[in-house]
């Protein structure tokens, strides 16, 4: 979306393996993604898909097993913690549960100004000015400045966490399920806030979630993960309206629609995800996929271009062969048109 500028984040074959009793857990297995400046990217996937592990890797909270990660062109996986610290002001994070991510002993003022002091963002006499500025951005009343975490509502707590993250003028914010602990009406307000901040401040977001409803209003692009691999990536609308990978099709079709007049064609998956403790050869979705064929489990599946434009790609062997591709599209047409119908006026 930014023409020829460089991505703010790029991972190349990023892999994180944990040694666990009885095997090795491939939490993230060869993930290659980019995030461009000013872009909001959703990273969606079910539990165990490796999305949080990847986020921890990006923030240098975990050592990579293999692969590379570039932040503004600088390789970070081999960087020392001391060296990475200088980057921390430009990459910030908002966690899922503000009750756990905010220090109960610190006031709102202390919480938000701490990173400003640590990173020497503003001179000492400007601290209060910047604090008020940031508080204003997240719509928090200055009268809450001396309150502590437990004296705030869930929505206010998350606003404080967001204020802390944006205080240092970051270029890139990782949001790890920032709304899943919140009620629906508060959730909408926080999404609205995040959306406005992103547009006004031009930060890039990596928005990690299993809540697909929050993705559509916030993110330009969506990356779908399953068992440590990227299954599909592309512009958010394309992913929602015209998903290509059989897994994404099932995922999108499984989302309940808050309209009783819409009757969905739904793919009900059978079985459960295989255990990730052994490395999966080929497609991790093969065991639950109705279109599985021998080639799916024979070797690594690359990403194939599946969209007419704008980097829509899917890691599915069906898109390797024009004939398979056509037959698959034919068979899932009913479903795809059902998904499309929902786009039109009811």
């Amino acid at each position: 979306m930014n023409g020829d500028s460089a991505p703010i984040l790029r991972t190349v074959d990023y892999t994180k393996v944990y040694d666990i009793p009885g095997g090795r857990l491939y939490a993230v297995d060869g993930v290659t993604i980019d995030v461009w400046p000013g872009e909001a990217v959703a990273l969606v996937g079910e539990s165990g898909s490796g999305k949080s592990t990847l986020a921890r890797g990006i923030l240098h909270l975990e050592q990579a097993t293999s692969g590379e990660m570039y932040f503004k062109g600088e390789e970070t996986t081999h960087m020392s913690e001391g060296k990475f610290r200088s980057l921390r002001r430009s990459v910030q994070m908002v966690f899922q549960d503000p009750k756990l991510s905010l220090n109960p002993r610190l006031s709102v003022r202390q919480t938000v100004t701490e990173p400003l002091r640590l990173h020497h963002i503003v001179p000492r006499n400007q601290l209060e000015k910047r604090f008020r500025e940031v508080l204003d951005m997240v719509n928090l009343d200055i009268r809450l400045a001396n309150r502590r975490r437990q004296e705030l509502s869930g929505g206010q707590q998350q606003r404080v966490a967001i204020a802390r993250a944006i205080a240092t003028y970051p270029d890139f914010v990782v949001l790890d399920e920032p709304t899943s602990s919140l009620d629906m009406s508060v959730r909408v307000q926080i999404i609205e806030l995040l959306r406005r901040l992103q547009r006004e401040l031009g930060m890039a977001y990596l928005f990690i979630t299993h809540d697909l409803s929050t993705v559509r209003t916030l993110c330009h692009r969506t990356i779908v993960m399953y068992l440590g691999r990227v299954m599909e990536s592309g512009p958010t609308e394309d992913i929602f309206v015209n998903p290509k990978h059989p897994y994404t099709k099932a995922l999108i079709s499984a989302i309940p629609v808050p309209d009783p007049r819409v009757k969905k064609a739904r793919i009900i998956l059978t079985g459960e995800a295989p255990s990730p403790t052994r490395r999966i050869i080929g497609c991790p979705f093969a065991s639950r996929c109705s279109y599985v064929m021998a080639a799916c489990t024979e070797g690594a599946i690359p990403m194939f271009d599946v969209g007419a434009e704008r980097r829509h790609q899917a890691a599915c062997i069906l898109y390797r062969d024009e004939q398979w591709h056509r037959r698959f599209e034919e068979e899932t047409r009913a479903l795809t048109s059902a998904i499309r119908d929902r786009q039109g006026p009811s």
Partner: protein
Amino acid sequence: MKAQSYAAAGKPMSGGDGGRSAAQGPLLRIEDLTIGYFGQDRDEPVRIIRNVDLTIDHNMIVGLVGESGSGKTQTARAILKLNTRPLQPLEGHIFMDGVDLLALTGEKLRAIRGDKVAMIFQDPRASLNPLMRIGDQLARIYALHQGISRAAAQAEAIEMLRRCGIAGPERVARSYPHQLSGGMCQRVMISLSLGMQPDLLIADEPTTGLDVTIQAQILELIQTAQRETGSSLLLITHDLGVVAEVCQRVAVMYAGRIVEFAPVDELFTHPRHPYAIHLLQASLALEAPEKAAETPASGYPAEASPSLELSVGQETYQASLESARDPDATAFMVEVSPGHLVLGTPVTVDQAVPSGFLSGQAGAKV
């Protein structure tokens, strides 16, 4: 998954629309239920659930929605007298087959629990005994409730697990809860409840915390079972998407009161209580796609960007919330159309939801 037949199990059941659904009024009637506790001064109780009226007909799925703390769970638990102290029902009645469940104690209460009304809790792992194998837990309960031998109960347990779409039921029966995934534990809980063939199944957020593809499986399973046994279901959820897909009627709770109770189609097309309108619009605010303007082919109105602007006006909205919260509640339910009840003064909005806006997807969690 779809081919299972629950009706084949044990005692005869009326299936589908036939049988008892035609008969004798509602299955369950909650009247003027108030739940609360006595504070330190012990004079005046604190009422957290106030004047709740709710009817559940035979062969029907009723949704109970609201945000956390609105009293959904406590209302449902009262049906089985499961409110934990200091909370207790203070006033009201819960009638089932002419019997007031709130008046039951001891053996009579135990005869209702499980046999007539069963409950699936939100966290399935927490409701299973971690030290017992799945098969033994199920068999023990079947033996107790159905008066069959332990061996017969074991066989029944495996059969029920199979019917609930569990592959390899023998292996699962030998497992302990910690060896199973969350989705699998929830299926075990469902087979446990269905095995007792209750007239009413209460499911308290049965899919919260599960992945969306697993959620779809579980909802499908619950619906199939409900259809085949003709029993009724009270489904507690905060997800209006789930309500729209599964339920026939829905009650919206706010601050311990039911503010609107209506057929699902009615609530989604003509919500009449400001809070219900707000909740619906909040769920739908997230539906609009990013950059709607760039995808005119999708048919969204150009200004469909998310907005929390209330079509009822801030003052009306706040007044309605205050009226619902008012401890000396004077507001009562008004029937605005057959079967559509609203607390206090119903409002009319031209378009609670712009047409075309609704038809997008999203709605819930993965």
